[in-house]
């Protein structure tokens, strides 16, 4: 009989009207790497939160290493040997690695004793599992890959025998991802059981022994990775065949509609985030900007959208010229046919406490179309929103619903609908499919291509190389605020892009600046 590290038997959890988990059963073989895939909202996170004691299951049972376990809180989870590495790191950045690791286990009132003991254990762990980190380094100074290592060490230090990793590769370069996988394989050899939650099927195929697929709160398949393939998994996740290869006619590039020359952008902390960047985008083409998150893409996008002032250089949309002397705000840019789908839909793209209807005119709310005698025309706005929703298949189709209550994919479709509604000349779009389910990804990509084919210019910023490769006509790579490469999409592959994405060493002369950017990444 196989030894199981985790056995879940018919676990159910309901939030109000939403059945987040329904009779979920799962067996994880001890010492294996087990993948869990599923679209957003399929119930992966809820299941993991139940395992880690954030939520209580309504029914069903959980056994850890053969013993029935009751997990009312995260202390109980830790005591049972379950450790969690969250997608967003739970680290205190100004603290050292050692201080972070003993957080919650300080031992006695005086830190000295606990620290001395922890230091020894930590060194043992580092050597045993080949996880090298300087215990006295300040966490905020470490690159993201190492911070993740600290999270893993933190879990191991607390005695984790089962390690849950939630979307661990989202913030890593392809090379860092390889390092992480090497570590995970090492942990597995040492007998640690690993539960990997991801939406990247390639990673599942690369590293897991078994894989479970969730859909609509249910576990729809438990498979051995060797006996399945990405197509089958995608189909199981979505419940229907998925078109992964989009039809894309050759670009009919026209005039340059966006010209950036020598652009530099400085952030509020006076760190130069975009350094002397120049490029062009023509009508009828998609230019993709690839790079690890936090390398200046966000600031570049915000400057292009008029949300941030430029420090040097110029941005030209036809005759409109943004420079240090002439700032043009987002309102004027919108009027000129420049639309923007921001990368962070919760923080920027939507006002989440407001209704879908109110959000459907965000940025366009001053238009005469929506105003009469100083009053907004709520009926008309609602009708407009309903049209957008049916055109872009936003569900539920209820303009009065608070926008926070839509799923990520539907929020994104609503934003896209709003921005594409006036057939803009230029679309600036950041991370269009982050946290969006496969079905919606397909839809969003189709819409972007449609805009390109009708002669619109698109600047696409994404950390998903697959997305960049699938959509772009040309690809620009950014690293540490600089453009470190430009290739035609036809000549690009993941490996070369990956190398350009981490090309800091030979391009940046000032190493302290690059460490600055790493700090920012962490934040």
């Amino acid at each position, binding site marked *: 009989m196989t030894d199981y590290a985790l056995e879940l038997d018919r676990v159910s959890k309901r939030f109000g009207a939403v059945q987040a988990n329904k009779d979920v059963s799962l067996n994880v073989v001890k010492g294996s790497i087990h993948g869990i895939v599923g679209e957003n909202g399929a119930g992966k996170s809820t299941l993991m939160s139940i395992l880690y004691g954030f939520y209580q299951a309504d029914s069903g049972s959980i056994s850890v290493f053969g013993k029935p376990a009751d997990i009312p809180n995260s202390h109980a989870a830790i005591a049972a040997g379950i450790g969690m590495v969250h997608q967003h790191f739970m680290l205190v950045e100004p603290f050292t690695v050692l201080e972070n690791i003993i957080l919650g286990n300080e031992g006695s009132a005086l830190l000295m004793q606990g620290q001395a003991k922890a230091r020894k254990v930590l060194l043992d762990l580092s050597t045993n599992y080949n996880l090298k980190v300087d215990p006295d380094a300040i966490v905020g100074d470490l690159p993201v890959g190492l911070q993740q290592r600290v999270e893993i060490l933190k879990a191991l230090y607390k005695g984790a025998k089962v390690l849950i990793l939630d979307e661990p590769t989202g913030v890593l370069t392809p090379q860092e991802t390889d390092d992480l996988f090497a570590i995970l394989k090492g942990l597995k050899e040492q007998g640690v059981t690993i539960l990997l939650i991801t939406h990247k099927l390639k990673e599942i195929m690369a590293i897991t022994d078994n894989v479970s697929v969730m859909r609509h709160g249910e576990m729809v398949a438990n498979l051995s990775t060797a006996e399945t393939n990405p197509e089958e998994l995608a189909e199981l996740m979505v419940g229907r065949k998925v078109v992964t290869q989009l039809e894309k006619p050759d670009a009919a590039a026209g005039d340059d509609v966006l010209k950036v020359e020598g652009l530099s952008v400085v952030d509020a902390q006076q760190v130069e985030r975009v350094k002397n960047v120049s490029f062009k985008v023509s009508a009828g083409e998609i230019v993709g900007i690839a790079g690890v998150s936090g390398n200046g893409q966000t600031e570049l996008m915000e400057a292009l959208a008029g949300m941030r002032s430029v420090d040097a250089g110029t941005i030209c949309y036809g005759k409109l010229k943004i420079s240090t002397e002439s700032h043009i*705000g987002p*309102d004027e840019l919108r009027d000129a046919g420049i639309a923007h789908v921001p990368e*962070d839909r919760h923080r920027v*793209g939507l006002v989440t*406490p*407001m209704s879908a209807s109110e959000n459907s005119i*965000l*940025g366009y709310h001053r238009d005469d179309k929506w105003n009469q005698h100083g*009053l*907004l025309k709520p009926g008309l706005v609602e009708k407009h929103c309903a049209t957008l929703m049916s055109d872009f298949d936003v569900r539920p189709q209820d303009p009065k619903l608070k926008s926070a209550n839509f799923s990520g994919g539907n929020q994104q479709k609503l934003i896209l609908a709003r921005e594409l509604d006036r057939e803009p000349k230029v679309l600036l779009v950041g991370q269009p499919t982050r946290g969006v389910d496969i079905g919606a990804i397909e839809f969003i990509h189709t819409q972007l291509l449609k805009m390109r084919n009708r002669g619109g210019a698109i600047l696409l910023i994404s950390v998903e190389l697959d997305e960049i490769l699938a959509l772009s006509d040309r690809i620009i790579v950014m690293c540490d605020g600089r453009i470190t490469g430009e290739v035609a999409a036809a000549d690009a592959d993941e490996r070369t892009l990956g190398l350009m994405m981490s090309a800091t060493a030979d391009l940046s002369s000032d190493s302290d600046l690059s460490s600055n950017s790493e700090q920012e990444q962490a934040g």
Partner: protein
Amino acid sequence: MKGLDQALPRWVNIGLLPLLNVVTALLVSALVFLVIDVNPLKAAEILLYGAFGYQEGLGFTLYYTTNFIFTGLAVAIAFHVGLFNIGGEGQAYIGGLGVGLLCLALDTSLPGPALLLLSVLVAGLFGAAWAFIPGWLQAYRGSHIVITTIMFNFIASSLMVYLMVNVLREPGQMTPQSRLLDENSWMPFVHEVLAGIGIEFEASPLNLSIILALLCALGTWLLIWKTKWGYEIRTVGFNRDAAVYAGIKPAYVMVLAMAISGAMAGMVGVNEISGVQHRLILDFHYGYGFAGIAVALMGRNHPIGIILAALLFGVLYQGGAELAFEMSNINRDIVVVMQGLVILFCGALEFLYKPLLAKFFKEKAA
């Protein structure tokens, strides 16, 4: 928590919950009365009679309510843009100063209606100006609005003392008060207006400013929820980044909202100076600005809620005064304790019953 929030029907959230909070506050007040040997039922009777039982009492209640509506709206408007305006005291004081200066200068040379209209404008302008400075400092210089508005309360207070003692004091008088304003500039009393149409009503300080207060409430509702400016105010209040993205200038909108907020508080000056005092005195504004915070909190920053909460505070003020007058072992401080309890349960412990109600309604639904 999100799950709990969705479980409650709307009427429970905006109706039942505040009601339960008020009832709890009153029950705890009853305990306090028991401790000091007062029969709570008797006290309640006196309080309610004092507030509603006779015409003059009712007049006083509504006159207080008028002030609370103004300051409650002021706090709510600032709240919608994400700022905590606790400078209502100062803004009300300076609004009154504006009315006083205007009327001292022109009370005999302009027709009454024009004077009243100008008084309202000037009260608004002065209040707005007093809120504009902290608003500007917050928006463009990052000085915390809570600190600056408190400071401006002190500045207003000192400024008024200086002006009353040294500049505006009636010649030959020892008390720091201005001369009586000409009747031409007075806001008509409600009892006078009613008498004019043949209804007899006991004299009270209640004046037509209460109509102004209700108009302000309506205006606030329209502004915040029905216009693009309100849309921008709420957007900035909810999410400044999204506002920037939408081409809104958050700093500008914040200053604008603060000015409107200050204008509302300034209206207290109309009710007090044009309506009741008919001369500039010290401390006519006392306490209304701060109570406005509780009123806005209780009223969930919505004009209708604010009117109801303002009425409750009006009742507590007037009924409480009556209580202190009627019962020997109750003094004004106990009334303040009652108000404090209402603020505690409606403000600080706003969600005390929420988990309980959520459970109840969940079980009922299942």
